[in-house]
């Protein structure tokens, strides 16, 4: 008994070492998996964010055809960086709607005039309420919405040129 007790601390410690080692060498999963995938879009109705585009409501996203929902802001630098990719997607025939976060109409107009306007509809989310409901933590983010208005994919960060084929693939899969 005494013998067992004497060696018990070492045994416990070796267990901890094994635990530490497993924790240390386990690869970190740094990809965020949205829990909203497969869920319908949260209901929202937003006022227009740009002078020459209609406002956006969640009901308008279930059109039978998959489309993109881009979350952006005129004050956001990576959003400007991803503008060419969005224009390319629009050229490929993808309908794109957008939500401008914490923005103002003149700023959005200026942004679109400068970087191009790939959007069909733009809603203004002045207090980030819809953004939070979408589980989006920053700008830009892009959601693939299937024909029934459900979220099929969430892309966090700007869309790079080599992301475009993958986005198109996701849109095809959401058909």
């Amino acid at each position, binding site marked *: 008994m*005494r*013998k067992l007790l*004497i*060696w018990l*601390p*070492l045994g416990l*410690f*070796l267990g*901890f*070492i094994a*635990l*530490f*080692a*497993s*924790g*240390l*060498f*386990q690869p970190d999963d740094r990809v965020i998996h949205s829990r909203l995938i497969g869920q319908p879009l949260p209901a929202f109705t937003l006022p227009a964010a740009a002078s020459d585009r209609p406002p956006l409501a969640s009901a308008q996203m279930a059109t039978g055809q998959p489309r993109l929902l881009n979350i952006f802001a005129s004050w956001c630098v990576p959003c400007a960086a991803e503008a060419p990719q969005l224009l390319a997607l629009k050229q490929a025939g993808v309908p794109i709607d957008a939500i401008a976060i914490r923005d103002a109409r003149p700023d959005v107009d200026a942004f679109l005039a400068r970087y191009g306007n790939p959007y069909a509809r733009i809603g203004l989310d002045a207090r980030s309420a819809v953004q939070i409901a979408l589980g989006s933590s920053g700008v830009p983010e892009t959601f693939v919405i299937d024909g029934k208005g459900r979220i099929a994919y969430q892309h966090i960060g700007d869309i790079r040129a080599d992301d475009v084929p993958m986005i198109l693939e996701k849109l095809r899969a959401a058909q």
Partner: protein
Amino acid sequence: MIAEIGLAALWLAAALALLQLVLAFTGLKGNKPDLLAAVRPAAVAQGVLTAVAFIALVMLFLRSDMSVLLVATNSHSAKPWLYKFAGTWGNHEGSMLLWVTVMGVAGAAVALFERALRRDTHMATLGGQAAISLGFYAFLLFSSNPFARIAPAPADGQGLNPLLQDPGLAFHPPTLYIGYVGLSVAFSFAIGALLTRQVDAAFARAMRPWVLAAWVMLTLGITAGSYWAYYELGWGGWWFWDPVENASLMPWLAATALLHSVTVLATRDALRAWTVMLAVVAFSMSMVGTFLVRSGILTSVHAFAVDPERGSFILGLLALYIGGALALFGWRIGAVREGAPFELVSRETMLVINNLLLTVILGLVLIGTLYPLMTEAFGHKVSVGAPYFDRIAGPIALALMIAMAVGPLVRWRRDDGRVVTKRLVIPFLIALSLSASLSVLAWGRIGILPFLGLVIAGAVGVASLAPLWKRNLRRTPLFTYGMVIAHLGCAVSLGGMASDSAFTVEKLVAARPGDMIQTAGWQLRFVQIQPIAGDNWTALQADMEVRRGGRPVMIHPQSRFFASPPTTTSEAALLTRWNGQLYVVLGEEVEGGRWQLRIWWKPFVTLIWLGGILIALGGFLALLGRERRGWLMKWRARAATA
């Protein structure tokens, strides 16, 4: 040049540690006094060299030498000098250099000042200290070199995290590290005693001052860290059960247990194996804590640059040192005779209860801290937060407080249960009347734990003074005063914690300049918002005129913007009164020109840290008492022979 001197000093210190290790153990093995004679000089030289390396790094930071990678990534030339200085240890490499320096200087102190220990155990202890240091030198030199250069040198540095740009950084990490790493001395003592099979009362008397000194510094470091987090983070809390806080609490719990068991061993020659085990555990907890923080396997607010390679390195050191010490323990402790037996009603029993309760809390905190790792091994990552720790550790801590009140009133060896009960009558009556009055005043408004906390704090506070009852206060030894003050400090601190969780009033408002806010008897007039500029920051500052009866006082909560690196911090405004603190945080601007304000009135919250300081003061007095008695005896012996 300075960087090269520092690096060279570090390599030399590492070489000396190796020499010290080899000399000590070959000398002991072959019984060669000429080899052993060089061990102490080696330890002293090692301590001096680590200090040189550390001073070199401090100078690099003070001079903002941007050709040194560490300075360039963690400092900025526009910082006030205090933060350049303290920024030395506000990063991974610098803090590990501080760690190694404390270890080297502690080793030198053991070589210079330890006289009570038997010579062979002393040598084995210094050998053990060298062995531990060697691993950390290797860690520093091979994977965390603080003196690495960068070419070309950048024009300016990236700056220090603004949360760290606070006088707290100058005080908290050094004291904490002296305590944390000072426990390595106890670890080495245990190794030395196991190697020479000298676990007895004399060994305990020699080890006690070292444990006490490390424990005092650890107590101060934790207290300072808690207050710093309290006012700097702006969350109004003083303890967050963050992995890093737990990493400092666990060695403290082990060291507190060790402090008491070593007294039993020194006074009554009992608890031999247990005391050695605690000496190993205390420093092991320091090392485990370092590993948890630096490897990035747990997420914490104290984010150091995370690197899996460093994690594996520290894990290797952990396995080597703790595993080695525990194996040595298993191998040798059988040869240590059982200590002296004792009666059921005795001081010894009370101290065993103290040790058991502290160990249980330690185990629970350890499990809670490692819980995310354990659950991750089974697929999900789940962490447990404050509710777990409060509910699990709280009740045991309260039981521990009761044991703390009773323990000093029981005699060593054997006592009469009825007599002990009589000594406890007054504290018991106080507890009764406190519960009665609290029930009447605040029934249903405060939780059960804060309720018990207040009652126990009152009763234990009085009981902790009882050892001085009917004694000649001038002839009472200093270490008894030390114990009384430290125990009183625990009660004071508990009182603050319980009062904070029972009576804090919180108010969240959105107010416009000119508005009047009322809360907890305070009137706050929001005068204006104005921009102001500091050394390396600009801020929006709210000027508020507050009063509670009496004359109004101005307070200024701020929201600060730092340019390098770009960050916003909130500087809470604290107004301290004898009966509590008013804590105001300025939040964001909301629509209509209104500002979010978070206001707390925290009755007697300052007692938490006052208690911490009392605990450390008690430890210091006890240390002084033991040492002074040693000097007196030596002086008398010298006078007698002369």
